[in-house]
């Protein structure tokens, strides 16, 4: 069973209640910090042998090669493929595309030692942008996010404060980060981000 886009219902994303506060911080910081949920992105866990025929079949099916260099992201117009492990990727697509993606991927890897799992509900995505995005994350992320070490096209599973997160540098044209957090931790991560933004918000409004 997969995310069903035919439902007439409005899906509720994990951080729907934070939209106002994210927007307020973005505004009050004068753009120094931009926070926004990118809700309900299609996410598929893909497990296969990176050197085997399944990898090639997926490349053909998606028009996107799964990256083999650890902690990197490959982008196409529609999709991003994030390296999670030597035989594990997260393929991210537009909201509502999970069922179709799963079908394409399953068809591609049929008969191989591979697994495709719809995990769209496992995580939600927060856009962390703005000139101070790196400083903001440095309050809780032990990784070196300096462009020399973690530029566009890099991703990493690591910790942010006390939660595990999947962090990805977006591409050159869209500076900032995707922060993927487990849905059940999303409220904590959002609260943490809003709190960490305190100094950057006041920077732009009340500090001369």
């Amino acid at each position, binding site marked *: 069973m997969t995310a069903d886009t035919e439902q007439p219902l409005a899906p509720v994303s994990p951080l729907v209640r934070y939209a106002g506060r994210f927007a307020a911080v973005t505004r009050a910081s004068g753009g120094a910090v931009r926070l926004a949920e990118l809700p309900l992105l299609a996410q598929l866990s893909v497990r296969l042998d990176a050197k085997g025929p399944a990898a090639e079949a997926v490349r053909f099916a998606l028009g996107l090669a799964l990256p083999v260099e650890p902690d990197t992201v490959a982008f196409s117009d529609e999709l991003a493929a994030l390296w999670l492990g030597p035989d594990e990727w997260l393929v991210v697509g537009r909201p509502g595309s999970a069922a179709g993606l799963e079908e394409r991927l399953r068809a591609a890897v049929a008969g191989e030692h591979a697994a495709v799992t719809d995990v769209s509900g496992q995580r939600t995505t927060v856009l962390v942008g703005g000139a101070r995005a790196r400083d903001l994350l440095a309050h809780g992320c032990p990784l070196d996010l300096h462009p020399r070490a973690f530029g566009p096209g890099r991703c990493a599973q690591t*910790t942010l404060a006390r939660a595990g997160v999947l962090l990805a540098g977006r591409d050159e044209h869209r500076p900032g980060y995707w922060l993927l957090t487990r849905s059940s931790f999303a409220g904590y991560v959002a609260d943490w981000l809003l709190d960490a933004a305190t100094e950057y918000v006041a920077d732009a409004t009340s500090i001369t």
Partner: protein
Amino acid sequence: MLLIPCPWCGPRDEAEFTYGGQAHVPYPRDPAALTDEEWARYLFFRDNPKGPHAERWCHTISCRRWFNVVRDTATNEVLAAYRIGEAGPVIS
């Protein structure tokens, strides 16, 4: 905070990993063939050297790969890190 070289992700903070005890203690091929004492040795007995020690770590928070590390238990120096299935280094 140790910096542990994950063979896949590179050096990361110790907090991202879980410790898995002594390396190279394989599950016995046929447990039923073992005496109680032999089985107890597998279950409960591990080396505890002062000096280089081959041990297992898992990069739990990230790539979830198990791998082996040779760590000097006296200095915490990581002397080697290698993937499961790879041969360990010879530590003199």
